[in-house]
C-alpha cells in the first residue's frame, strides 16, 4: 500500500468518524467540534489530491470562520445537553431503509463512474495557485462574479433581517 493511499484512508476514516460523532454527540459544542474534524480531514484530502489552495481555504473559511461562528453562537445561547428521545416509528420503518437505499445509490454511482474519473495528481504534484487564479479570472470569470453577487445579496439580506427588529 502506498503512503498516499494510507494517508487517504486515515483522513477518510477521520472524516467519517467525525460525521458520525457529529450526529451521536449529545452536546452541541461537541457536535460542532466533530464537524471541525470533518472539515480538517476534508482539507487534508484536498491536499492529497494536489489542491493546495483549496485545502488552505477550506481550513481558513470552513474550519476557521464558519465553525468559529457556530461555536460562538452555541456558546452565546449557552445551549445545554440535548435529551435523547426514542426513535420515532416513522424513522425506524421509513427513515432507516430510505437512508440505506440512498447510500446504496450513491455508492453504486461512484463505483460505476470510478473508471472514467480523472486520476488524482501523481505523487506530490500540486496545482499551482497561480494557474488556479488564472482559470478563475479568465474562463470562469462570469460564474465567479455571479457567485460573489449572490454572497453580496445574502449579506444584505442578513443585515435587513437583523435590522427589522429595531
Amino acid at each position, binding site marked *: 500500500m502506498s503512503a498516499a493511499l494510507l494517508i487517504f484512508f486515515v483522513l477518510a476514516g477521520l472524516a467519517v468518524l467525525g460525521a458520525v460523532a457529529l450526529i451521536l454527540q449529545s452536546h452541541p459544542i*461537541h457536535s460542532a467540534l466533530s464537524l471541525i474534524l470533518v472539515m480538517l480531514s476534508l482539507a487534508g484530502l484536498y491536499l492529497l489530491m494536489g489542491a493546495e489552495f483549496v485545502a488552505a481555504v477550506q481550513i481558513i473559511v470552513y474550519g476557521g470562520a464558519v465553525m468559529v461562528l457556530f461555536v460562538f453562537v452555541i456558546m452565546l445561547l449557552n445551549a445545554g445537553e440535548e435529551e435523547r428521545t426514542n426513535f420515532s416509528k416513522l424513522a425506524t420503518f421509513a427513515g432507516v431503509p430510505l437512508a440505506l437505499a440512498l447510500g446504496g445509490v450513491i455508492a453504486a454511482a461512484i463505483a460505476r463512474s470510478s473508471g472514467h474519473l480523472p486520476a488524482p495528481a501523481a505523487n506530490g504534484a500540486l496545482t499551482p495557485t497561480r494557474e488556479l487564479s488564472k482559470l478563475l479570472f479568465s474562463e470562469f470569470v462570469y460564474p465567479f462574479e455571479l457567485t460573489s453577487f449572490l454572497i453580496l445579496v445574502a449579506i444584505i439580506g442578513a443585515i435587513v433581517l437583523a435590522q427589522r427588529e429595531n
Partner: protein
Amino acid sequence: MNAIFAQYGFLIVAIVKVILLVLIVLTADAYLTWLERKVIGHIQARWGPYRVGPHGLLQPLADGIKFILKEDPLPEGVDKKAYFFAPFLTLMLALTSLAVIPFGPDITVFGYRTNFGIADINISLLALFAITALSVYGIALAGWGSNNKYSLLGGLRSSAQMISYELAMTLSVVGVLLIAGTLSLKEIVEQQANGNLGLLGWNIIGFSKDHAGLTQIIGCFCFFMAAIAETNRVPFDLPEAESELVAGYHTEYASMKFAMFFIGEYTAMITVSCLSTILFFGGWLSPFPASWTLTHYVPSLILVPLGLWVFFDGIRYETIFGRIVLPGIGSVLTLLGLGLFAAPAINELIQGPFWFFVKVFAVLFFYIWMRGTLPRFRYDQLMDFGWKILLPVSIANVVLTSAFILWRMQG
C-alpha cells in the same frame, strides 16, 4: 551511512530542525517574559525582576519551576474534554505556525542544501493564516469548558474579536501579495531584495525594482493592529481583561496548563513579529544594499561591544554567581564577534539570521512598548475600530495598490 542519509536525509534534517526550533522558541518565550517585565518595569520607573540571578536573568527558570510544582486543581462541573484539550490545542497550533516561517536564505551545511526553517511550501502565508484561524478554538473551548462565567465571557469575546480582526488581517497583506505575486514567504522576501536598494526596497517603503514608490505602510499598520488583536495583547486584550474578567478564559487554569496558554500566547507574539518582519521589513535582508560588503561586519561591531559591556557589568556584580556567569556570557559574545572577523565564511552564513533576529526583536520590543503605554480598549470601541476603521482602510489599501500596479503596467 551516506546511503542512509541520501535516502532519509530530508526526514533526519527535518526532525533535527524541529527539535532545535522548539528548544529555541521555548527559551525565547521564557526570556520574552523576562524582557517584558523588565521593559514595562522601566517604563513605569521600577526595576522589574532583579532578585533571581544577575538582572533577574534566572527569573524565567524560577517561574518554570513554580509552574511545574504548583497544584493543579480540577474545578467542579468542567467539561473535561474541552478543559483538557484547550491548552494543548493552543500550544500545538502556536508552535506549528512557526514551521512555515523562513528565518534566513537557503543554506548549505556540509554540502547539504536546505531551507532555513522547517517547511518551505508554496502557500506558506495561507498555511499560516489557516493555523491562526484555528487557534481561536483553544481560547473558546477553555472559556466554555471551565464552567465559569468569567471564562465564558472571555471565550466569547475572544471568538468575536478573532472573527472581526481576521478579515482585516487577511486583507491587509493583499497589497504585499499583489506586489510580490506569490504566496510563498521566502519569495516575498527575495522579491524585496530586487534592485539592490537595501532598506528602501522593503515593502514598507517600496522602492523595489518593479513598483517604485508603492509603499505598503497602510497595509503594515492594519496588519500589525489586527495581529495584536489576534494575539490578544494590549490594547486588545479583552478576552483576559483582568480588571473585568479576573483572568478571562484561563481563570480556572493553574500550573502547567496555565503555562501552556502562556507559552502559546508568547509564541504567537513571536510568529506575528516574524510575519510582519517578512511581509513589510524585508525578512532576513540587511538594511544596506547587498553590494556594500563592508556592512557584513555589522554583527561583529554589535557583538563585541555588547560582550564587553556584559563582561564589565558582570564583574561589578556582588553575588558569586553573577560574577561568574555574566563575564562568561560576555567573553563568549566578544569572542564570537571577533571570530566572525576571522572566519568570513561563517560571517556570510549568519548575516540573514542576524538581521532577521534584530528585526523580530525590534517588533517584539514595540509590542511590549505598546503594552506599557496604551490603556485597554472598551469592547464597543474594539468592535468599532475593527469593522469601521481597519476593514475599510485595508480594503482601500487593496484598491489603491491594484490601481497603482495597473497604472505602472500601462505607463
